[in-house]
């Protein structure tokens, strides 16, 4: 025990002595969360729109007002001709061009169908898909309103179906509430995984690992002494970013905060295991960083449902995502935050993390001992 304690103290001192490492371990996670919290948004707002109003009547203006008042569109250009409107699209000044032809109001009032033109730049497929949804909603609403007004003369009105939406868990559909709980987890992963692998490889590089090995310290004591400091740093980081998430970004934390720490503890098993594994493969810190970055962070970020929903992936790749520990941790953290889920809904995530964590950690420890022995 005493040997481990001294190692932990030594490791913490080493980590906190370097001013830049101190910054990286403590301040960087908070900065990352702050930037991510504001930047990582898939909300669609102020889609730039060019309008050609060839009609210039109160009817056409009423339609345009519906667009501008919706909050989803921002008029970036008034075109003089249909070609001019599409030119805005070509120059990237607008993503959507609405073309109201001459004679729009006389068609509409004369019980003829007026044809509107809506041209979209499909480059940003996701935003444009949502924007087109809004535009059809606006135009259909306008069209229905007109039809009802004109049908008022007849004695009975037709029935219709109105959807009444109840959005659960994230009532305002803010992407921030979806992303920030995930960033909390990401920060925890990056800090524990990188610092672990770096600390061991650094000792390898400067040769002090060999010195430690000839001391009476046993390999398992050495491993524990190396890992415990990073568990501590990881937990401090979780606390910091949780505070920012809840008090600054006001992400609702509906579940029990203790569950987040519990899951973090289980999740750290996997990140420490991977960090230790990297340290047995890499000879230099540069290699360790590259392996961590390309072999783990980037694939994990993409194949965990962090931004891209797993449900959208091909079936074969969906199976691959079961191997990614981050997947379970993200699922659980989001559920604790937004759904207020308790342990009875999270136990399978926890079980998966424990299985992966214990597996990876014991394999790495065996490998580490063999390499050292």
């Amino acid at each position, binding site marked *: 025990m005493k040997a481990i304690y001294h190692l932990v103290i030594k490791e913490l001192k080493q980590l906190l002595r370097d001013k830049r490492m101190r910054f*990286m371990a403590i301040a960087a996670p908070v900065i*990352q969360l702050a*930037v*991510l919290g504001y*930047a*990582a948004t*898939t*909300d*669609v*707002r*102020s889609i730039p729109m060019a309008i050609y109003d060839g009609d210039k009547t109160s009817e056409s203006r009423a339609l345009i007002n519906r667009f501008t008042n919706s909050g989803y569109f921002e008029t970036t250009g008034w075109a003089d001709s249909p070609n001019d409107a599409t030119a805005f699209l070509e120059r*990237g000044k607008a993503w959507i061009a609405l073309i109201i032809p001459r004679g729009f109001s006389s068609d*509409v009032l004369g019980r003829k169908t007026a*044809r*509107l*033109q809506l041209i979209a730049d*499909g*480059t*940003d*497929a*996701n935003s*444009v*898909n949502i924007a087109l*949804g809004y535009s*059809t*909603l606006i*135009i*259909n609403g306008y*069209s229905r309103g007109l*039809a009802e007004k004109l049908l008022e003369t007849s004695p009975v009105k*037709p*029935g*219709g*179906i*109105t*959807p*009444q939406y109840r*959005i659960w*868990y*994230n009532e305002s*559909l803010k*992407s921030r*509430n979806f992303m920030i709980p995930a960033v909390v987890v990401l920060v925890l992963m990056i800090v524990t995984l990188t610092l672990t692998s770096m600390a061991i490889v650094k000792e390898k590089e400067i040769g002090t690992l060999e010195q430690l090995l000839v001391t009476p310290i046993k390999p398992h004591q050495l491993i524990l002494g190396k890992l415990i400091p990073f568990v501590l740093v990881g937990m401090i980081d979780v606390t910091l970013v949780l505070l920012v998430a809840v008090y600054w970004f006001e992400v609702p934390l509906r579940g029990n905060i203790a569950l987040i720490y519990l899951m973090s503890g289980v999740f750290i098993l996997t990140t420490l295991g991977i960090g230790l594994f990297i340290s047995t*493969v890499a000879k*230099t*810190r540069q*290699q360790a960083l*590259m392996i961590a*970055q*390309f*072999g783990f962070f980037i*694939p994990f970020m*993409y*194949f965990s449902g962090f931004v891209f*929903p797993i*449900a*959208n*992936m091909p079936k074969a790749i969906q199976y691959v995502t079961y191997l990614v520990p981050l997947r379970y941790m993200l699922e659980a953290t989001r559920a604790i935050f937004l*759904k207020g*889920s308790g342990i009875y809904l999270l136990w399978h995530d926890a079980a998966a993390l424990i299985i992966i964590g214990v597996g990876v950690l014991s394999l790495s420890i065996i490998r580490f001992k063999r390499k050292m022995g």
Partner: protein
Amino acid sequence: MFELPNALRRIKPVIVKEFLQVRRDKVSLAILLLIPAFLMFMIGYALNFDVKHIKLAFYDQDKTTTSREFQRSFLTSGYFDLSAVANNYRDVDGMLDSGTARAVIVIPRDFSKNLLADKDIAVQVLIDGTDSNTGTITLGYITSIIQTWSSKLTAEFMDRKGVTPYQPVDVRPKIWYNPELASAKFLVPGFIGFILMLSAVVSTALSVVREKEQGTMEQLTVSPLNTVEIIIGKTVPHLINALISSVFVLLMAYFLFHVPIRGEIIWLYSGILLFLLAALGQGMLISTFANTQEVAFMMSVLSSILPTFLLSGLVFPIKSMPVALQVLSNITPTKFFIIILRDVMLKGLGPWAYWHELVYLSLFAVVTLGFSARKMAQQRKAV
């Protein structure tokens, strides 16, 4: 002073040495060449926002042929998969809590009766909003299917009343550049920028800092090479490496994901070259500040990888960010590079459309490389 032939003769060994070093470090080389290709492969296939197969459940209180027909119109739309059937509201809660269903539609008891009586019907739709983007798209699909039903009802009604059915406004959206709205076409050019940024900035910064750590950088500084020559010697090998990766990823983008290159190759490559110079400049600049590889790596992550992923418009639309971040987004050259890539690849445009971006990238390259040269010269004087 700076005679070209002599300068070239002096720079050559530095380039050769840098190449040898890159080649000898097998692990790093494999990572630099293979992983980007692998990622590209996975990204093109796996990552998209194309929302399909949304897990939908029904709580049908009506249980008539009409209500089943209503259900079918969702399932045949191609966007929804029937995941479960609820028999009471507790089922509905359980399905959303456990994620068995992402949306539940509750069809009220008198659905078919009220339809026949031309009454208004409210259908309750419950959506799991956790993933706001999928939630928004789901909401859009459901609304449009229900609207189609409503207008069909109106048309039938008018038909019965002997009124000619009429629709005041009709609109058929036309979509340019990416008519099928495939998000791969949007994301792949962005990822090309991401991959190139990664390999250029990180490898340059780390390789220079490694020499600093090992003390061989000092040997270089006491050699007859001047600062500009050292910088050229250090950047050229990484530039060539990154150019080779760019060929790989472009070929993959074209053959695997059918992301077209509609513009001229020459415009594409002049953009890539300028961007790589900017990225290498950033790597060099980091290497003049950092003294250890960890710090260099962390600085690269913070100044290039994260901003590239978050602020460049690669995934998240810049337009939706707060103004302060929109301003901050200018720190990453990838933002400008992605605009160029999308313009050339998807829209088939040329420099006339994106000359602002070209000017910015050149400025970025000149400033970062110039600043690194100055800093390095100062450090040399100190030695």
